[in-house]
């Protein structure tokens, strides 16, 4: 179900977001919770916030729900010990991928998402810092990524960040970290040269490592 919205400003809950008041203007709310509350509770919360919400669990298993601004479920990622689905959803004209703690050290999943055209990845695992897996996936795929659990951070290609670190910690106000996604900078980066253009798929197909 496409959601009619833009995706420029995202608010990430730094605490138990379900108990927070509405953040400043934002197009999407993202919450990380230990376990998913019942859907009616989520629907009421979303309707109260009057904007789309993505709620994911922060444990090794991903469960995530995407709700539109009226609280209707637009997509749900199932739980599994080892995520075997690429959880990707279109929001405000952007493709958003979801990753869990079990996706750490599975660069294949991030690459597949990038090649599907994913623009933004939401990470629900608690990554080591600095230079955790989600940061590294961002560098080798040039999407944007938001670390939702723990200390919220925006990851972007080193060339895009003002200090060259590829990581931008988010300031928390009233329990929310609000970030404006730098789409224009990313467009300029990709126009200057996308690292995905340097892939060598012919070699990978000749020597497919997945077959041992």
């Amino acid at each position, binding site marked *: 179900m496409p959601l009619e919205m833009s995706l420029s400003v995202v608010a990430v809950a730094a605490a138990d977001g379900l108990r927070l008041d509405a953040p400043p203007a934002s197009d999407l709310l993202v919450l990380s919770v230990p376990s998913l509350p019942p859907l009616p509770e989520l629907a009421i919360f979303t309707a109260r916030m009057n904007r789309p919400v993505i709620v994911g669990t922060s444990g090794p298993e991903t469960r995530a729900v995407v709700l539109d601004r009226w609280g209707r479920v637009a997509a749900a990622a199932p739980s599994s010990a080892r995520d075997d689905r690429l959880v990707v959803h279109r929001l405000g004209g952007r493709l958003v991928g979801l990753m869990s703690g079990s996706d750490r050290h599975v660069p294949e999943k991030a*690459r597949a998402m990038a090649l599907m055209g994913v623009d933004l990845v939401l990470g629900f695992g608690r990554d080591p810092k600095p*230079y955790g897996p989600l940061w590294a996936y961002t560098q080798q795929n040039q999407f944007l990524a938001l670390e939702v659990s723990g200390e919220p951070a925006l990851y972007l290609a080193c060339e895009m960040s003002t200090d060259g670190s590829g990581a931008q910690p988010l300031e928390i106000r009233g329990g929310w970290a609000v970030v404006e996604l730098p789409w224009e900078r990313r467009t300029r980066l990709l126009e200057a040269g996308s690292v995905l253009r340097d892939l060598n798929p012919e070699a990978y197909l000749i020597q*497919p490592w997945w077959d041992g």
Partner: protein
Amino acid sequence: MDRTAVEIALGRVVLAGLVARGRTRVHVGSATAPAPMGWNRRQLVAAAVQWDMRPVGGLPEFTDRLTAVMDAAHHVGAALMVFPEDVGLCLLGLVTRYGGPRSAESLSASDASRYLSAWAPLVAPLYEECFRWAARNYGMVVVAGSSVYRRRSGVFNQAVVFGPDGRLVLRQPKLHPMPLERSWGVRPGSRLDRPGGLAMPLGIAVCHDASFFETYRMAGAQGAEVMAIPSADPDPDWSEAKARRGAWARSQETGMASVVAAGTGELYGVPFTGKAGLYIPRELSADGSGVVAESREAHGEGIVAGVLDLETLARFRQEARPAPAPELLRAWLLPRYRSLTTLT
């Protein structure tokens, strides 16, 4: 005939003579006999060079520097020595000291390509001879960095590996040339190979190849546990973050060790910065950094060395880095790689 063509032709004559004479005069190594090497199935003593990239003034200058760093590696008992990418191109100084371009910046991409493809393959035999000597005289596996080669299908940036007996065991073209290299006509290699006949579980990723997890996965599927990375990053501004997104990050993802050699300095107007280093998963390093050894500065020359615990790394990979199921990878990646090949 334009000026470039004349210079190239004259340079070829000069180089042909210099290389033929030079190959008979190469000697790398001090008088010390090879010591017992630091390598068995459980651990590997590895070393990597940080090399000041500049055109050589003469062959003895090159072999003296080579001897100095090989001596240093020998003293720490290294069984593996890795040199930086493009190190063979330093030998172009043999001809450019008589004339020719001083800076790639002053050339169009097509002229740079003409010089490179005409002269670099000519110095390749001399480059190989130097490192063959180094490997044999010190009894080490030497990853001799890379140089530019011309093959029937085009021009390639190719790494060369010698066994401890001086035998050439691998020529590995770079799989992912940088855009700058592509503009000079350098083509990507078509496959990743393992050094033939080496018991050491070694794989090669030439510089930008380490930016792609696929290189490590392909090498790992062939039995590699330690990746040697000859690199030369054409970036005047080194930063830790940019450095950590290459081989270091691949070691975190795959659990394989990385031995990175770095070019520094300036070669024909192209500035290089980088640190030589040995990297492992951060969980296995006492301070959580994932760094076994690393140069202090991203400039200058020297070596770094350290011991890689292959047994612990193998156990770690098994327990903490299980690969996703093959059917998932086939579903995730195969159609997407195929779609890329049909687009190009």
